[in-house]
């Protein structure tokens, strides 16, 4: 039997944890599109799920080769979303970690961090400009047009998003920093 679940995650590690908890309950994710997860009920099997951010888009030849390589290693590619891929491995086939050394962990965390950091900057700039225009127009008694409050509310929403992306990036930055410090003394 199949189940459809709507859920929105910002943090991919929390999402991964949730998918693994669902699988432990016998509900295994088999499809994803726009915050909509499809689960298949099966109490016989159990999978470990991982979510990875690729360097390129899923259709890129490099990504295709990588996903094929994963397939050769008992890792199933379940779904994709932009550069994100959902992977799983049957727990009977052993542990499932994609990155097992500091250098490759740093590289993956950095890729994810860069996404959040870019969005933080874009939203921050958009927020600042909108808020600025709105306030200036208000000071000028709306001489430029009747749009001040519209701009101010868009500006505030963008700044809220910017803070959200900053909060998503912060723990990753800390992890990267810790790994880099450890890398000085151990591999």
């Amino acid at each position, binding site marked *: 039997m199949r189940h459809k679940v709507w859920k929105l995650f910002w943090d991919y590690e929390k999402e991964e944890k949730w998918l693994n908890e669902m699988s432990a309950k016998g509900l295994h994710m088999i499809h994803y599109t726009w915050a909509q997860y499809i689960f298949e009920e099966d109490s016989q099997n159990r999978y470990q799920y991982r979510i990875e951010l690729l360097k390129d888009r899923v259709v890129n030849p490099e990504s295709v080769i*990588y996903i094929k390589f*994963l397939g*050769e*290693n008992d890792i199933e590619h379940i779904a994709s979303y932009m550069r994100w891929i959902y992977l799983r491995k049957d727990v009977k086939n052993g542990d499932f970690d*994609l*990155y*097992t*050394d500091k*250098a*490759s962990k740093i590289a993956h965390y950095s890729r994810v961090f860069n996404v959040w950091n870019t969005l933080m900057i874009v939203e921050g700039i958009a927020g600042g400009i909108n808020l600025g225009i709105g306030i200036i127009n208000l000071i000028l008694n709306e001489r430029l047009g009747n749009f001040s409050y519209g701009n101010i509310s868009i500006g505030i929403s963008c700044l809220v998003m910017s803070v959200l992306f900053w909060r998503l990036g912060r723990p990753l930055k800390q992890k990267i920093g810790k790994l880099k410090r450890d890398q000085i003394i151990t591999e």
Partner: protein
Amino acid sequence: MPESNDRGALTEAVYYILLSLLSPLHGYGIMQNVKSLSHERVNLGAGTLYGAINTLVEKNWIEQVFSESDSRKKEYIITKLGRSVLGEEISRLEELLQNGKALLERGVK
């Protein structure tokens, strides 16, 4: 040999990958071999292994084997250059080991 001066210590993963590829193996085989060589201690993640294989091929320390059998999976083998890197690394490890053991023993007395 070029670049030998700036070549540092090999990572544990690379050392075991090179050792595994003294005979041809595909990705999954490398993972299993590294696991058994290290008595389950070193577990290579697929992403880490993929990155390492690509870098080693670029450096020409390993190369792809083109065989007619089981062409579905890519197999790799160590190159001449790879063997010499491995040899140098083993000498380096021997030095570390000898110094470590000798100094530790002296320290006990």
